[in-house]
């Protein structure tokens, strides 16, 4: 067993543990903090695949900004721990369970028996490190994929203007 496999196993175990804790905790604040832990492990996977830029952005955007806003909203609403379920799960809980279980079955059916993408080894890491780094990614984004980038930029601009307009609207 090489060092890559060991690191991958540790990260995989922690992220699975975090994922299970996210859906089983009753307290929403605990769920959010476990989700942050899971995102951290994802960043670790990106680093192992050589996608260092993506790893940094994963932590910066998801763990550092979006989850903080989640936490902010949950704390402002001051959600208490819900009481124990009465009279069985609701319609939407049943629906959610069926969708999630169906998704899991589909993914398992697809990936079972197929070899994984594999992890690039450290010795050949030089190339993966270069490919996943900020420079090559930036070159691609602003040459080959410049049109999607511009579209995404316009969508984000529209969202920002919409948010400002909503916040500015005079309260009656």
């Amino acid at each position, binding site marked *: 067993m090489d*060092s890559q496999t060991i690191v991958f196993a540790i990260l995989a175990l922690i992220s699975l543990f975090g994922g299970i804790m996210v859906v089983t905790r009753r*307290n929403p*604040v*605990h769920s959010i*903090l476990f989700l*942050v832990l899971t995102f951290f492990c994802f960043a670790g996977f990106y680093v192992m695949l050589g996608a*260092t*830029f993506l*790893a*940094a*952005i994963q*932590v*910066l955007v998801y*763990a*550092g*900004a979006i989850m*903080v*806003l989640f*936490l*902010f909203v949950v*704390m*402002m609403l001051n959600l208490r721990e819900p009481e124990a379920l009465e009279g069985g799960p609701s319609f939407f809980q049943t629906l959610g369970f069926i969708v999630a279980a169906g998704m899991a079955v589909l993914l398992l059916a697809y990936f079972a028996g197929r070899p994984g993408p594999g992890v690039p080894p450290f010795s050949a890491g030089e190339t993966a*490190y270069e490919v996943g*780094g*900020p*420079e090559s990614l930036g070159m691609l984004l602003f040459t080959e994929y410049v049109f999607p980038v511009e579209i995404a930029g316009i969508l984000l601009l529209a969202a920002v203007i919409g948010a400002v307009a909503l916040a500015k609207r005079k309260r009656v």
Partner: protein
Amino acid sequence: MSEIGAFLLEKTVVGSVMFGVTLGVVAYATLGERKLSGFFQDRHGPNRAGPWGLFQPIADGVKFFTKEEFIPDRANKALFVIAPTFTFMAAGFLIAVIPFGDRIVVNGREILLQIADVNIGILYILAISSLGVYGVITGGWASNNKYSLMGGLRSSSQMISYEIAMGLAVVALLIDHGTLSLRQIVLNQTGPIWQWSVFTHPLGFIIFYVSAFAEAARIPFDLPEAENELVGGYHTEYSAMKFGLFQFGEYTHMTLASGLIATLYFGGWSIPWLTAPAEPTVWWGLLTFAVFWIKTFFFMFVFIWVRWTLPRFRYDQLMGLGWKKLIPLAVLNILAMAAILIATGGAGME
């Protein structure tokens, strides 16, 4: 010894030394803060423990460990206990990419006085410092106290707002240097003193430094713990070593923010007009290490100086400064930098 064994040994030794030295500096930063505050207020400051009060940090540590650990009734115990470690971890992770010194050659083996020179250095710093908010916000929430919660919420909105200004200030620097690696940024600043980025990015430097004050939650931006409005802010309910860890995390943040300012804008470990020898010895390594810390100490002094000189902002003033002044200024700075580079055909234009 095998290659991987040598690598692990090198990184363990370099990592332990950098971590140990940083924590030592942080411990004495608390003494420095109190000594300097005494000086600014025309009094002695701590002078009882050892000569000139030099053992004060040790005495403080003993005090923190022996005081009563108090957990408020109906607090969320698990999060209450773990929150101070979040603050400290987020600050401590930054040590990994700070270039503390140049490379040295020992027995034909090249050793970098930096734990990891990664190609995303600055992004790593921004990402990790964006996590600092978790300790404060969970600590404030878990205390089950309205003043603590107010402190935590203020802190989260303050840190998110000023991160944007800080990130935008750094973008202008990156356009100029054309790299995210902190070591490469230092190397770009070697040579005559006007190679320092502060001379090419004066506006960016000011925005970055002001944002660093807000990120470290120091006066004039210490609204998360404004004692005349919020008792003690997010750490109102904390006592003993848990409180100590919050303080320690804050001082670590201040120390590393100073180190980062020295690295990005003041040449880091480089010495003006001096180039590295072809065969860098241990002495050269120690010299660069000392130069890095001297520059860092200066910015830590400014942090303390400002704290004991300026009054605190009001909360709406703080947000106004961040969103209506610093962020537009930072965007203008980026545009100006890009325009200058296009006009002069500078770095990265080939």
